[in-house]
């Protein structure tokens, strides 16, 4: 996700928080010229999204391995997937990473966003510094993690040793690898959530807060009863954006552990990649990716419903 994406997301958050307008008549009856103007965008979306996805879905119904002619096998790849322990392991890890990272990022991002709203000095500089982690390419994050967190060669354990702690295995221990990955992702993307929260918070009506203060509500009460409910649509937007990224999380895991140790970080995306590009089972890899896409799509739909429920 880019900085432009962050700006758009902040804008979307502000839009979510703004009072609803009734749609004008031009929305109900598009003109012919409007249709022509939209047509290229629709054609582009079809070519870039619908066709590749349709092809992947078609591929998932075939036994397609390198060097062999593809053979239609119906839903066999999906039956195999349901009986595959590696799939269920990947599914569990994907959900674990999603829940863990999302929780950390929403909590820490809300705190940071509200803190930023109160920063008066060097506001531009502070925001620029915060933006920098999510400007870094994932490969850089992965390489940094390897250098810093390697239990033998990395600086993290050296620092822990100076404090009389550790050593920790971080990415090399099946018990800590997913927590480490979740923290790495949270380090990179919490500022993004914070900027969304900041955008949403600044667009909230001030008079509600002032009224609460005059009525003698404590800071904690104002946060629980006013700030959080009003920010709910913004937080759901942030959750949707981060969920899509987290459910298809790939780069950092592949660079740092390649799914190991053992299968301890083989999420669905990593599993699909290995099946496709390392073991050349394109049909099965497509079935995995279609399933993952369905999970992502389902999550987005669920959040869309939640957003409608949280709207005010």
């Amino acid at each position, binding site marked *: 996700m880019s900085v432009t994406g962050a700006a758009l997301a902040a804008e979307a958050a502000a839009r979510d928080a703004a009072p609803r307008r009734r749609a004008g008549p031009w929305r109900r009856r598009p003109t012919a010229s409007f249709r022509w103007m939209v047509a290229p965008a629709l054609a582009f979306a079809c070519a870039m999204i619908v066709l590749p996805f349709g092809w992947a879905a078609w591929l998932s119904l075939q036994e397609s391995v390198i060097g062999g002619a593809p053979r239609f096998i119906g839903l066999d790849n999906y039956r195999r997937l349901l009986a595959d322990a590696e799939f269920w392991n990947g599914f569990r890890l994907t959900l674990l990473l999603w829940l863990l990272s999302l929780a950390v990022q929403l909590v820490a991002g809300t705190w940071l966003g509200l803190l930023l709203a109160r920063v008066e000095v060097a506001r531009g500089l502070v925001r620029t510094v915060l933006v920098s982690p999510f400007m870094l390419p994932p490969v850089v994050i992965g390489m940094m993690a390897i250098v810093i967190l390697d239990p033998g*060669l990395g600086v993290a354990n050296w620092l822990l040793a100076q404090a009389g702690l550790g050593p920790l295995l971080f990415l090399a221990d099946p018990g800590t690898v997913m927590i480490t990955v979740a923290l790495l992702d949270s380090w990179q993307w919490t500022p993004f959530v914070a900027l969304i929260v900041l955008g949403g918070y600044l667009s909230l009506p001030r008079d509600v807060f002032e009224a609460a203060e005059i009525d003698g509500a404590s800071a904690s009460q104002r946060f629980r009863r006013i700030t959080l409910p009003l920010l709910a649509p913004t937080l759901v937007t942030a959750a949707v954006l981060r969920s899509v990224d987290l459910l298809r999380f790939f780069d950092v895991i592949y660079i740092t552990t390649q799914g190991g140790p053992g299968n301890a970080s083989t999420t669905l995306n990593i599993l699909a990649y290995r099946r496709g590009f390392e073991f*050349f089972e394109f049909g099965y890899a497509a079935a995995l990716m279609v399933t993952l896409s369905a999970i992502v799509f389902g999550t987005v739909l669920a959040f869309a419903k939640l957003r409608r429920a949280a709207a005010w």
Partner: protein
Amino acid sequence: MRRSFLAGAAALAAAALLGPAAQAQDFNWRQQDGRTITLLLNNHPWSQAMREMAADFTARTGIRVRIEIFNEEQFRARLTTLMQGRSPEVDVFMSLPSREGAVFKRAGWYTDLAPLIADRRLTAPDFDYEDFGEGMRRQATIDGLVATLPINQEGPLFYWRRDIFARCGIEEPRHLEDIPVAAQRLRACDANQGVWAARGLRGAVNYGMSGFVFNLGGSYATPDGRPGLCQPATIRGIEMYANLLKDFGPPGALNHTFTQVIELLGQGRIAMTHESSNEFANIMRFPGRAQDIGVKVLPPSRETGISRPLVIGWGLAVSAHSRQRDAAWLFLQWATGTEVQTRLVQNGVAPPRASVFQGPAFNAWAEELPVRRAWAQSLIEIGRTGTGIYQSPTDRVPEARDLIGNAMQQVVLGRASARDAACAADPELARLQ
């Protein structure tokens, strides 16, 4: 009359003697002048050297060269994507026939080089295919199709720090069984000195571990050609490798491949490893290592007397989808020719050509340092006795190696005994047959 016959005979003799050289001079290296070829290469000392030398090829042929170098995983992903899409974007690619040869051949990705070698118009007269070692040619030929031209030969070698062994009064390991004993004594001698490192990453384990399995008399296949991890000697090999990693390896060893292992050895943090001969030049770049490192083939087992190392070789293939086949073939000839291979020795690339290996330039380079001589002798030995097959019988080689590596990891993680992990892997390996 007699004088003219003698003159004619002398001319024929001279032509016979000078023929190949004269013909070589006549060969038209510029027949594809103005074309551009694209190389897709794995990150390897050979590839890095080629980046600097490709300009010489352009100067000789007029063919421009575009080089793409990726780390191995990314290299394979890009190659698969392009070749599966029948893209003509890549003309020449690196390939490891012992790993992927059968699958790539079945997919029709290789151009058969045999007709090109035999074509007098396209092949320089001084290009001697027989000069590649027989084992290398055998590995590069799949069911009669000459898939690649060898660019190096390599295999895992045993590296140890002679100075640390001397300081601790420990003998150089003469047998495989001496390695765990030496590890124990090194630990007792200096608790702050790292002892051992080797590949622990699942897909990379087999490269380092197979020497242990083979030397102890093990095999990945049963005599009737089925997966054979659950054989006593194979289990012992897996157990020895896993225990060395578990008891004496660095923390986080299961995420390590050659990059971390070489870094640990180069920085002086470990005293022993079993790592690729390819990394020799990189190890020597670390200060002091040229003086204190010893290198040799993994020692034979005391019990079995067997020494059966691995030897593999990367090769260069011409893509079957290339539209620049002839220009690509000229590149292959140049890049695998005697002249270029002689220069590549300086970059630590072990030459697959016998004439270069036994030539004066290589010998002069090797004689400059004892460790270089030891390295060269080890390469000769693995070339003579090594095998390129180090997984259970299947053509789904990467998957089989992954399963075997996973069995070893289970032992290191303490989730299974070597016997349980090995025996559990066999049915899964059987599904790949």
